[in-house]
């Protein structure tokens, strides 16, 4: 957990020193300008624990998985913005063999629905934080198939750097931490992000 924290703090400080260009920016350009911005992102996530599977079994844990998110934010003419995020993420999965040699596979994934707040620290660098619910689901293939849902509260925090492609479109990268209370540990993900200000007035 501490490794993640050092990593995020390092990235956060590093990004603040990047140069400032013209084009898409999350910072308000002038008073009275409002807009809606869509963020679509996908990438890889890493579950921050190896405790996810029973250690008395012969097992192979897969901590690395795909993460994809879609987020819509209201951009008013001040620094703080609010919006909603959802997506699909796999926390982790593992294959195992029991004492009789019978194998199985378990997977824990989630669809988060989060209310988020964001603030542009510089023209290109943005911070996000949010909380809400994670629709968790376990799938287990071992002596039959079981699919079991559970609702959990959860959180996220992220930092992104967005490079402008045009006045309304940007391409960025986002480092994100997501955690549901029921999963005990969260995942950190690195995602490529397409940003589109699809409506403004």
């Amino acid at each position, binding site marked *: 957990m501490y490794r993640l924290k050092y990593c995020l703090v390092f990235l956060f400080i590093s990004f603040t020193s990047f140069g400032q260009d013209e084009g898409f920016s999350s910072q308000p350009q002038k008073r009275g300008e409002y807009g809606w911005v869509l963020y679509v992102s996908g990438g890889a996530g890493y579950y921050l624990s190896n405790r996810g599977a029973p250690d008395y079994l012969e097992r192979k844990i897969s901590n690395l998985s795909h993460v994809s998110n879609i987020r819509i934010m209201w951009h008013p003419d001040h620094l703080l913005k609010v919006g909603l995020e959802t997506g699909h993420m796999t926390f982790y999965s593992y294959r195992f063999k029991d004492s009789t040699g019978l194998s199985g596979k378990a997977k824990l994934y989630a669809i988060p629905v989060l209310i988020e707040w964001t603030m542009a620290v510089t023209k290109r660098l943005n*911070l996000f934080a949010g909380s809400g619910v994670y629709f968790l689901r376990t799938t287990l293939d071992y002596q039959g198939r079981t699919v079991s849902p559970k609702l959990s509260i959860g959180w996220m925090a992220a930092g992104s750097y967005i490079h402008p492609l045009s006045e309304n479109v940007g391409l960025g990268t986002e480092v994100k931490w997501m955690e549901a209370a029921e999963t005990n540990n969260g995942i950190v993900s690195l995602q490529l992000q397409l940003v589109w200000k699809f409506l403004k007035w």
Partner: protein
Amino acid sequence: MKQVLYILCCCLFFFSCRREFTVTLPDTNWDIFNSASAKPFAGFTRSKMEGVYTLEAGSQDFGPSTAAKWSYTANGLDTVYHLSFFLERASAYFICEGRQLDSAILLNGYWRRMTTTETGKVRLTIAKGSGGKQLLSTSSFNPLTDSIVITGVYSNGDNNPDLPIRMRYIKPLNKAKPFQILAHRGGGRSADLLPASENSVEMIRLASQFGATGIEIDVRLTKDGVPILFHDATLNERVSQQNGLLGPIENYTYAQLSTLVRLPNGERIPTLQQALQTVIYNTPLQFVWMDTKVHGSLEFLRNIHAEYLAKAAAINRNVEIVIGIPDEEVLKNFKLLANYQTIPSLVELKAQDVRDINAKVWAPQWTLGLQDQETSLMASEGRRVFTWTLDVAENVEEYMRKGNFNGILSNYPSIVAYYYYVSP
């Protein structure tokens, strides 16, 4: 301004980790106790040692008095006896094993305070001239003329024990009125960092050491219809180790749970049959309250109930097992059983529901008060009243002194045991 924001963000990252509490029981190895010359003593010695003792030293940590009571754990032909001291201050207890060395008695074990993570070693001695000789002889013990003085040392944690303790026998244990000291979740909660997990076979084996005369266990059904012990409706990290399995426990088969789920201290989830088997064959427990958390027919529960009552009777074990009825749905399903009025049951609902199904026990929540009128009525009808779940020492003392209950369910049975056994 930005710098302040950066510092605040950094502080949030670095100081937001949860603190994890643990209790590691001390190493109780005591050379003289484990030596070949230290031997087990007879049952009559154990009986004579039971009683209420006043603390002449050590009262600053454990209070003014203690109730000492033996219990056992049977493993086939091997039976281990433990002497538990239930103490007044901060829900503390000692759990010791005993041996005799010549004409002295040695007691070796640990102490634990339930409301904190504090624990330590306890090494006690009853010297030949302080009651040891009297206790080890076959002659009867006269509390008016004979005296027992237990002296020894205790420690904080794994330190060398050097804090003095001294206890003097003052009277026998109160057993005037039959009373059930019921331990919640098979003996205690996992959250209290006990040596075993809640609702496990291992916890049931410990329950009587904590002072329980009976247990409450939570019965659920797996997807394939196996009755198991599990408190929560869903799998989660409070009650099981992390394994990626979440959601209602009824979604999983017993084979899946048995292979992949371990309780916080590493135990398997037990079946109801394993739990009842343990109660009957391995412990001195006298009462089992099966808290029914099952949707649908209770036919299976009635059959298991009858089977294990017969097993207890076959070995002359006086064990009372009741089907707990916590809500209207279970009550409705209970009434669908043939001859339900003859099945021993315990009802947590209204007093009238108790009469409707001819339940043996009414179990109102403690927050409903002392219920003097209703408890008297129940007594006149030949029923008993157990209240739940009393965990605060002051409340236990008040309900014991003013109330007319026949039993108390608690997460801390040692508190109930203390107030019951020391009461006049």
